[in-house]
């Protein structure tokens, strides 16, 4: 396990390095920089002025130097200044993270809490009315885009309560905030809960067909023990991996949902920053998201190794 941890950690650092290069290069491959956008919206181009701004922002330097400066800054904890607001990028990014983080965690918790147990129930009660119901619901979950579901939920609120759960920057208590966020979280998490449910179900069914399940029954173990002790632990292996992948996908869903529900989070802010080619915001924010995704995947792999001795004891 120790060797595995070391190897895995090393891989994580390598991945992050690769990500940083990718983010940096891709961002610069997008046509135009902030000066183009500014003059475009102004309707004229002042070449001298444009050069001057580019010089100020360091956009005239070779791309390798720009990259080195960025990484050197990151190492010192200096993210640079946002082009648009001219405030330190960190002050723009940090305050927006908590609400998005809460939303993401809620959505993930929602999808796991519903997806996994319902998948297990569906598998254990295969081909019963309950199983069919759950399968239909999950199918609809897969085919319903989260923004559409979000809009439906909002419309339902308007229709029945004449009121929309608007997110306020100061919701009062944490519980109130969670209550407010749980609706958009459900909208985002519904799809992944449907996915997890289907995956858990098929994984569980696959496992319950295995020889060692029959062995467990032959020992006289009860259905409970067979399904949950022997079955579920094996069935969770692929599910855990997918939970990691879903955590990354969730962030994509958040961008739309933050817009639909008007939540002042990081995801919506990122889209805005991309429009302005606000490099310090975009590259640092995307890097931050990349770190989160990589760390989540690391945790997933650790969980996997904990669940599966075949990985843990690999030489």
């Amino acid at each position, binding site marked *: 396990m120790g060797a595995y941890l070391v190897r895995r950690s090393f891989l994580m650092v390598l991945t992050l390095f690769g990500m940083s290069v990718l983010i940096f290069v891709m961002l610069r491959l997008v046509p135009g920089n902030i000066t183009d956008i500014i003059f475009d919206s102004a309707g004229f181009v002042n070449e001298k002025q444009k050069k001057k701004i580019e010089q100020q922002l360091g956009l005239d330097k070779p791309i390798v130097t720009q990259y080195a400066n960025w990484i050197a800054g990151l190492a010192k904890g200096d993210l640079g200044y946002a082009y648009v607001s001219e405030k330190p990028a960190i002050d723009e990014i940090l305050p927006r993270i908590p609400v998005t983080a809460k939303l993401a965690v809620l959505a993930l918790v929602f999808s796991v809490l519903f997806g996994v147990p319902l998948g297990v129930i569906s598998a254990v009660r295969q081909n019963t009315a309950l199983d069919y119901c759950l399968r239909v619901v999950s199918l609809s979950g897969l085919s319903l885009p989260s923004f559409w579901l979000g809009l439906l939920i909002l419309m339902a609120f308007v229709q029945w309560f004449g009121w929309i759960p608007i997110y306020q920057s100061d919701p009062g208590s944490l519980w109130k905030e969670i209550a407010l966020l749980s609706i958009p979280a459900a909208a985002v998490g519904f799809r992944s809960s449907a996915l997890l449910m289907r995956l858990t179900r098929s994984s569980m069914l696959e496992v319950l067909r295995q*020889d*060692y399940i029959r*062995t467990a*029954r*032959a*020992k006289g*173990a009860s259905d409970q023990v067979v399904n949950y002790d022997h079955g579920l632990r*094996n069935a969770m292996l692929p599910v855990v991996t997918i939970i990691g992948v879903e955590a990354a996908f969730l962030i994509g869903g958040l961008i739309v949902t933050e817009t639909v529900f008007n939540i002042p989070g990081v995801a919506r802010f990122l889209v805005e920053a991309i429009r302005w080619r606000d490099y310090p915001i975009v590259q640092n924010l995307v890097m931050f998201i990349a770190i989160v995704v990589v760390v989540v995947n690391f945790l997933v792999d650790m969980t996997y190794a904990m669940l599966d001795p*075949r990985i843990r004891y690999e030489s």
Partner: protein
Amino acid sequence: MAAVAPGAAAQPSPSSTQVLEVANLQTYFYTRGGLVKAVDGVSFSLVRGETLAIVGESGCGKSVTALSLMRLVADPPGRIVGGSLRLGSTDLLRLDEAAMRDIRGNRIAMIFQEPMTSLNPVMTIARQISEALMLHQNLSRGAALVRSIEMLHLVGIPEPAQRAKEYPHQLSGGMRQRAMIAMAVACNPEVLIADEPTSALDVTIQAQILEVIAKLRRELGTALILITHDLGIVAETAERVIVMYAGRKVEEAAVGRLFARPLHPYTSGLIHSIPRLALMRRESGPADGRLLEIPGMVPALSNLPPGCSFAPRCAHASELCRREYPPYEEKRPGQWAACWHPVVGDSGG
């Protein structure tokens, strides 16, 4: 129940030592392709400490018979539709599921064919052996662990305390099968069913595993049902043999008698295919060269011919064979068969 326990005649022991009595067992599968009578009217009995072999070609219902004894046939599609299973004085088919669970792994245990896949990959060997002990003998976790290590020692696993902590993938196939045996005999069952316990193993390991099973049977006094394709193993290990064909028992006798003078042409075919086996393997024939002697194929169980199901492949088959299923009778003392034209005067072996 005239057909029950024909072998018992050959045994000196009275019925008080009889541990298992299977009468007219019928296990059917209700599949899309039709009704599959995987086990149709099989009867036999087993006395304490004896070894009974069940042989027959692939698909003849050996495994389903074994699983029926444990009441582990997948339902759906399978169901035990008739007959009775008596373990000692317990009628297994009348037990509810909870009572049956108390029997499984306790009074009847089973060793499966595939040691690679029959152990749970995410549980330690100790935990998998302990499970049965904790269920049936009310041992604490610690006591069960100690006992598990003893069992591993008993089946000849070196460094049992170390091995107990390991996971199945860390053990070789032979070691896993030993662990599997340890698990099955942990609660000292009255009946042990071994369903092709060695066919997934190397030839060199096979003999060792069979030796372990034989040793345990002697020491624990367990009655053994040995299911196998390998008549060589039968000759070495078993006392009595049941030959199955297409879900039915077609012959039963003591091993020596059966090999010397088989009654059913099918049995005769099986036996005659042994010496050829080695020969065929050396030539370019199919690697799995079992039963090359018997022409034709096993009929589909969902679509059996009206008369004797072996008739289409039988050299002696007559009009009668094709019309009516032969009665199962004692043709010679201690030797029973279902055949209209039993082989006579043949010495097969």
